[in-house]
């Protein structure tokens, strides 16, 4: 068998995708589930840091596998995420989604184990090309257009990465993917490429646009991989880049305002995803061992709790066909288990003590204070309260409680419940036993989140945020859920830019017409003069219709023919 320790982890996924294509029914299900399990066990038991594999194409060496603690951590994470997502989607009888799910997870693994920028680029583009099918799988008009817009952003990111990689090679003579930093044009090109996939402000709207349009199960896959690959890439290429602290702080704050007024609950989660990625970006930017550990640990936890939240909303969408807060409510009556699992996810993302978010977010916050960013720390604290507000309370409240929408449905199917329970179990396990996650973290640092100060401060913050929610609701100040679209950076791309392009086009067209008229004037003048002159009354000077010219040519040619016959 090929189970050698230096088998690049993406290969089993790509092979399994082919097998899935050729099988049906329970066998296909078995392959789907077995792939992440066997791949994950293989990675855990057989692969240790330092294992490598590379392949030569022409004169170029592609490093398909570079393992250290950082890539291994994301490797484990992506196997867990793929397993949970596959179980959640086990009822789906759609070959496209089955195949693409595995290819997408495999591409993410390929990207985090890539040792050089060209290999990274290949998987970077594969991530885009595979994931877009998960959006298109909804097969609605909206999803198809959103998918194209998504692809536009992702491919731009890939092109920038390739351009950056080539300049980098030209400058340094190497394409090894290690620390890059913001030096020179290569550094910036790659930075922006990573930034697009990371959903930096103004480059973020592919995420809030496309994720909520995917299928109930597709969004679970989508939420796990793309942004986390980007965090991995930033942690590898740009640790300690101060600009990232400011970008990250902005990312934690601006989406929460949108999340409060957004009606589509999966779009609320998409905004809250940018907010969580913001904490990780801050951690990478601070760049101390504690901060970097916090960033990657938070990425690890976020995949699981954000996946859990997307799964509960997916289950609601699957059972009711609705996703707007204004149309839902009271679902705890028919889906009590899903409601409970949603509350576990909500507690984790809100960083309640004993849940997973707490043990990783507190690392980033602590590192921020240590490095003296006290104003930005205040912003992050604001964002922490805000997260609880929109993801921690709003999601479970408007879906499962609030006003009874009258919808009565069935509990989520068993495979969905199983996947959600695994994720919820991991949230609580990591939250209560963080030492196991900490042992996997790449940098060595002593940290323990559970002391009186941290726990008390966090509980006060969260309970009083909840108190604000209760008070605002009782006062009638809480913005009601309304059917609406909220303008975002998207507006620039979809309204301002097309409108300005149209304006430029129209102006150019007008200018062209004017120029033509200007050029025609002397010509027309000459013609008028000519027509006044006696020459114009000469028979041949008159303008003739084309038809008569053709007729005369035919007559002449006919004459030639006759002459030819006669002579």
């Amino acid at each position, binding site marked *: 068998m090929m189970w050698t320790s230096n088998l690049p982890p993406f290969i089993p996924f790509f092979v399994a995708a082919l097998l899935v294509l050729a099988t049906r029914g329970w066998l296909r299900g078995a392959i789907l589930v077995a792939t992440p399990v066997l791949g994950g066990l293989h990675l855990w038991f057989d692969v240790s840091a330092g294992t490598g594999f590379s392949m030569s194409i022409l004169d170029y060496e592609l490093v398909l596998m570079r393992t250290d603690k950082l890539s291994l951590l994301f490797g484990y994470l992506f196997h867990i995420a793929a397993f949970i997502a596959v179980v959640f989607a086990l009822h789906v009888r759609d070959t496209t989604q089955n195949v693409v799910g595995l290819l997408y997870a495999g591409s993410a693994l390929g990207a985090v184990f890539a040792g050089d920028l060209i290999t990274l680029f290949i998987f970077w583009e594969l991530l885009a090309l595979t994931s877009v099918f998960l959006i298109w799988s909804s097969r609605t008009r909206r999803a198809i*257009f959103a998918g194209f817009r998504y692809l536009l952003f992702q491919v731009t990111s890939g092109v920038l990465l390739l351009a950056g990689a080539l300049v980098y090679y030209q400058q340094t003579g190497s394409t090894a993917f290690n620390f890059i930093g913001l030096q020179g044009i290569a550094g910036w090109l790659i930075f922006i490429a990573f930034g697009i996939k990371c959903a930096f402000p103004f480059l973020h709207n592919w995420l809030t646009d496309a994720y909520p349009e995917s299928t109930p199960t597709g969004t679970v896959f989508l939420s796990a991989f793309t942004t986390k690959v980007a965090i991995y890439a930033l942690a590898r290429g740009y640790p300690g880049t101060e600009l990232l602290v400011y970008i990250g702080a902005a990312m934690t704050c601006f989406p*929460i*305002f*949108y999340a*409060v*007024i957004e009606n589509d609950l999966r779009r609320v989660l998409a905004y809250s995803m940018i907010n969580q990625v913001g904490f990780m970006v801050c951690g990478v930017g601070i760049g101390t061992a504690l901060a970097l550990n916090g960033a990657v640990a938070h990425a690890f936890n976020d995949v699981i709790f954000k996946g859990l939240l997307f799964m509960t909303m997916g289950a609601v969408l699957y059972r009711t066909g609705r996703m707007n807060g204004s149309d839902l409510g009271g679902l*705890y*009556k028919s889906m009590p288990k899903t409601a409970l699992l949603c509350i576990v996810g909500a507690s984790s993302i809100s960083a309640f003590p004993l849940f997973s978010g707490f043990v990783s977010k507190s690392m980033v916050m602590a590192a921020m*204070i240590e490095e003296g960013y*006290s104003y930005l*720390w*205040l912003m992050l*604290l*604001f964002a922490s*309260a*805000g997260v609880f*507000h929109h993801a921690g309370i709003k999601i479970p409240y408007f879906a499962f*409680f609030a006003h*009874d929408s*009258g*919808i*009565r449905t069935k509990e989520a199917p068993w495979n969905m419940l199983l996947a959600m329970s695994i994720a919820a179990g991991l949230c609580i396990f990591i939250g209560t036993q963080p030492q196991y996650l900490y042992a996997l973290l790449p940098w060595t640092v002593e940290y323990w989140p559970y*002391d*009186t*100060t941290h726990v*008390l*401060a*966090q*509980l*006060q*913050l*969260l*309970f*009083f*945020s*909840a*108190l*604000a*929610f*209760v*008070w*605002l609701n009782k006062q009638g*100040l*809480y*913005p009601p859920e*309304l*059917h*609406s*679209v*909220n*303008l*975002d950076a*998207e507006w620039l791309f*979809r*309204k301002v830019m097309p409108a300005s392009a149209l304006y430029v086009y129209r102006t150019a067209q007008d200018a062209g017409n004017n120029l033509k008229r200007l050029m025609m004037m002397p010509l027309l003048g000459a013609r008028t003069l000519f027509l006044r002159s006696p020459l114009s009354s000469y028979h041949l000077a008159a303008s003739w219709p084309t038809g008569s010219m053709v007729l005369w040519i035919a007559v002449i040619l006919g004459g030639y023919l006759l002459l030819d016959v006669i002579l």
Partner: protein
Amino acid sequence: MRKKNEKQYLFDKPENVTRLLRGFYIICAALFLVDFALHRHISVDWEKIPAFYALFGFVACVVLVLIAREMRKVVMRKEDYYDVDE
């Protein structure tokens, strides 16, 4: 859809909601008071304010929601806003 004579669920009874809220208020009050009994480590000046985290959490969320409400006046459009002209 909802039927008559349907089973009464947990939060259908108003007294259960009241009970839940009362428990919640008691926890909030307790957390507020504990701040004066326990010693927190202070790393930033702001943390010296008594019950800083409680006050900050409450004010932050009220400010967040009030700003978001105002934001609606500027950014909210009809659901088909992007569907026309495309």
